[in-house]
């Protein structure tokens, strides 16, 4: 297998205007929490909250573009949202291979996204198969 147990990866993502607008234009989720500043503030957030599933796009980029091999596919992923992400937040992404199954060439990653306040905004697991 190309990946090794405990192998770690880091990357920085920014939820900028292009990502935010692009997500809305493709998926058309214009829920007020994501698009209305006052609505979001009335719900206790400091600004409009970015779509959690933007982070799943970052995960796709990680698996598809940042690993040392392109010969991979995602089998499963789970993500837990712990803190809100706001427009222009810079997120430090960390992932580590926590488990491998040589027989079926499967790697399990634990990952987390950390914001500038060092709070984990999301964490989870991804299972991928090496071809």
């Amino acid at each position, binding site marked *: 297998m190309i990946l090794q147990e405990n192998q770690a990866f880091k990357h920085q993502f920014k939820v900028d205007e292009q990502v935010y607008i692009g997500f809305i234009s493709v998926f058309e989720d214009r829920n007020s929490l994501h698009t209305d500043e006052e609505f979001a503030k009335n719900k206790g957030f400091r600004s409009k909250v970015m779509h959690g599933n933007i982070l799943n796009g970052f995960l796709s980029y990680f698996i598809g573009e940042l690993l040392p091999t392109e010969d991979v596919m995602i*089998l*499963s992923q789970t993500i837990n949202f712990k803190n809100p992400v706001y427009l222009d937040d810079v997120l430090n992404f960390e992932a580590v291979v926590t*488990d491998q*199954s*040589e*027989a*079926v060439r*499967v790697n*399990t990653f634990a990952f987390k996204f950390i914001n500038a306040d060092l709070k984990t905004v999301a964490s989870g697991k991804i*299972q991928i*198969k090496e071809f």
Partner: protein
Amino acid sequence: MNKDEILAKLTGIFHDELDNDGIVLSFETTAEDVEEWDSLSHIQLIVAVEKAFGVRFTSSEIQSWNNVGEMIDCILAK
């Protein structure tokens, strides 16, 4: 664990991984007998079985199995 106990534990794993509590496993069950047991779910099953029983299989072991009973024999031999 004896074979029957492993079969019972495997049945629970199959229920969870294949999202079907109606699956009934026997020693003779093959992938052809279980609609949800396809190539991708097979991978998930192997990973789940390894984790549940604390064992590691080789690719040649997996390829040698003809039915659930042979999977159980392999687990017992670990």
